[in-house]
């Protein structure tokens, strides 16, 4: 088991060394479709599909051979008349939801998608709670009482050169 993983790591390294270090535009001229509308759709779709052998790159950005094959496949499917969703479904059927950079809205991702909303609601509740549990805000603070004034004069009655420059 261990050995296998070592091999797999070595193999993954090989693939990455071919992709991560050579930063050039991934899409090759011979892949580009002549129909600009279809090509634009192809770019949109491929920027939403994850390159499986890379780290956090879409197939649109990756130079990996598999990413190239998938880009070509996306364009082929578009040429045969698939909608964007059909193309994605085609690839998901083979590689699973992992290829979607935008996770689908399924039970497993409810927390992911509702999370920000839940946080927002609970924060709103907390803020309302915060304001509700504070006493009524007087328009202006009550003026100092005589006692307070007397005590204060003690505090303020100190040399002004306390305010040195630090």
């Amino acid at each position, binding site marked *: 088991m261990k050995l296998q993983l070592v091999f797999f790591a070595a193999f993954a390294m090989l693939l990455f060394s071919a992709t991560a270090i050579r930063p050039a*535009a991934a899409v090759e001229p011979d892949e580009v479709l002549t129909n600009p509308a279809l090509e634009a759709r192809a770019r949109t779709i491929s920027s939403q599909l994850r390159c499986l052998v890379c780290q956090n790159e879409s197939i649109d950005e990756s130079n990996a051979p598999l990413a190239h094959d998938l880009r070509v496949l996306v364009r082929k499917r578009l040429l045969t008349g698939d909608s964007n969703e059909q193309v994605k479904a085609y690839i998901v059927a083979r590689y699973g939801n992992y290829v*979607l950079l935008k996770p689908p809205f399924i039970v497993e991702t409810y927390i992911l998608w509702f999370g920000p909303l839940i946080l927002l609601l609970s924060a709103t509740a907390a*803020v309302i709670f915060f304001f509700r549990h504070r006493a009524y805000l007087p328009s202006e603070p009550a003026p100092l009482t005589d006692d307070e004034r007397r005590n204060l004069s003690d505090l303020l009655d100190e040399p002004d050169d306390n305010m040195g*420059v630090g």
Partner: protein
Amino acid sequence: MVVETGLFALILALFIAAIQAVVPLIGASRGEASWMNVDRPAAAVLFALVTLSFGALMWAHVTSDFSVLNVIQNSHTDKPLLYKITGVWGSHEGSMMLWTFILTLYGMAVAVFGSNLPPGLRARVLSVQAMIAFGFILFILLTSNPFTRVYPPPLNGEGLNPLLQDPGLAFHPPFLYLGYVGFSMAFSFAIAALIDGRVDAAWARWVRPWTLVAWCALTLGVAMGSWWSYYTLGWGGYWAWDPVENASLMPWLAGTALLHSAIVAEKRDTLKAWTIFLAIITFSLSLLGTFLVRSGVLTSVHSFAVDPQRGVFILLLLTLFTGASLFLFALRAPALKAGGLFAPISREGGLLFNNVLLSIAAATILLGTLYPLFVDALGLGKISVGPPYFNTVFVPLMAPMILIMAIGPFLSWRRGDLEGALARLKLTFGVAVVTITVTVLIAGISSRALWASLGFGLAAWLFFGSLAEWSGRVGLFRRSFGDAMHRARHVPRSVYGMTIAHMGLAIVLAGITGSLAWKTEKLQVMRPGDSIMVAGYQIEFTGVDNDVKGPNYTASRATFIARKDGRFVAKMQPERRVYTNPPQDKSTVAIHTNFIDDLYAVFGEPDGKGGFVTHFFLNPLVPWIFFGAVVMVFGGMVSLSDRRHRIGAPIKKTRIASSVAAATAPTAGAAPSIEKKALLRGWIYLLPLLAFIVLAGFFIHRLQLASEGDTPNLIPSVMINKPAPAFNLPPLLADRPGLKTADLKGKVTLVDFFASWCVPCRAEHPVLRLVAQAGIRLVGINYKDKPTDAKAWLAELGDPYQAVASDMHGQTGINFGVYGVPESYLVDKNGVIRFKQTGPLTPEVVRDKLIPLAEKLER
């Protein structure tokens, strides 16, 4: 000598840090002045020792001392001097040294500037700083010692990754760390306040400038990282929501929130528990980022070489610092008395609102970054959370925040006048509406144009709203010009800082919107002499120089002349470089900017027929993103220069503290009594700790998996229990049959994808015999290979397959869900896939999994 002194100084620093962590703390709690006073000399000595140590490491790098392992691994004599120096923090060990150096630098700053801090507070702050320093120095010494020696030294070093030999990447870590580590100041102040059980005026005054310093540095660091991505990665992307980028954005968002809540804490003596919480969270997120990047829990393009052992140590530090501080928070925060009251609509209310949104944004990024790991840990399969998710959730959070950012400064403290504020924003509102209309008129009605108009509208709203606030404050249109200018001079610097920083954000927003909405891209094969048009620019490819020599690389350099309307605009020379030590390829792009848009040229591979792949982009408004970030930092620095931050120390008095009659004081408390609810509300303060415990437990689980060899890269197949996809492939060897789907039926079959170019396939090959011997039908599909190579390969190693088909274009591979050979699929008698092995088969897998399963399926 120098190197060993460096190590000894670091070891000495460890013990000094221990003393500094313990003695002043005890002194502060027992009121022993002489014990507390150990804090400043200790901080100075700690700084001096770590500086000496860091200097020694730098010396070793500059003099190419190959008796130091760290130098061997990251340097080479041919490397330019600049990169010998910046290479010090190019490695994990060196970057941790930089981290520690900056940490002690901040400690030193407290010692130097801290004369106006109450001694007890200062002693506790420096003690907490020393605890952090102790943890990190121990981490360096035990797991990442940069002074490990080698004898005999090799003749030369292994060189530095060419990607790191770049000014943008070389200088962005120091700023990033100045930011990350700078938040340790706010953290230390927060812990000191919690130990003390009170947050006083001096506390809030002090936290703000240090948070501001850290915020400025982090803003610059993040912007530099983004700029680096922009000109390095070759497609003009500046933000990819990569885990490492997220790790820097989370503390930035939390730190921005902290910056604003600290204002409320100082001015109004309220939101104190929240400010302390943010201080803890901001630094914890910095630590979490360090952990995620270096432990191998997440993978990223930018991550360091990962090491689970280091991961365990960083997790330990994270748990210690964050866990202990959140525990202290749960214990002490409920007792912190709230001070000044304010209405929901007020300056404080606006700041609170922004705080809430910024915190939720940070939490959302954390959720998105870690969610795939959670789903995986719960056995729910693998999912990806990429840029589309973050964009979707980030925009609705940030849009209202920017709306409020323009209104907030118009509201007065305590109780604001919303109608009045909006009335004064009428003109700004008009400008925003015009911006939106013009954008739609230019770009037409499409979803992209609508988003663009929204972005520009918000940017205009914020930019002109900030201007309007300033002009209202100085009375630009209400008073004589001279009077207004007089008033403008007397507006506090911190207010100017706010206006400038907010305008900077507006510029960034406009830049992001523009680059998303109107990017133009041209990709083609060009021969020298060819010309093309890119968004109004005529670009002529004049030639290639294949013989460019750099200090440690050779390159092919293309020359393009860009013209607009026949006039010369720029000469652009992108390169493809081959570095020698270590041997690696790197492509450098050429960018011509006119500060509104960037013309961006990439020089690709030759096509073998005299042409070259060339790729051009016109990236509109991208320069604004970086310019806006610099404006934000400038705003921060202006605010920092405000003299309010330089409050003096009280002079020593001859008489003991004022003899104020305390009898009346309790009634004077402005805060209403809310302590009776403390118990009831106490559980809220426990929530962060509980959440953190869950998170830490999860990370421990993750690290355990990593140490057992689990990699996050293995993707389970969705093809299990589905019929094998339809295919009909030609044979590889002429005298043997091909392969089609129907052939798989009737008998349990192992379909093995292999290729002669695949290194692990060679390792797998002998194992295939075991499969054949076990009576499982074995067929091979030769994946994306040249038939001649594959035939030679089988001739050399032997042919264990009953049939070998050729999948030249990889289409069948994709249908099976192959993402990297070798992969093998066990198909049952009915042609349904029952098992998949990703990566090479091993004797263990064959014996323990494959054969028993095949026997079961055969029955």
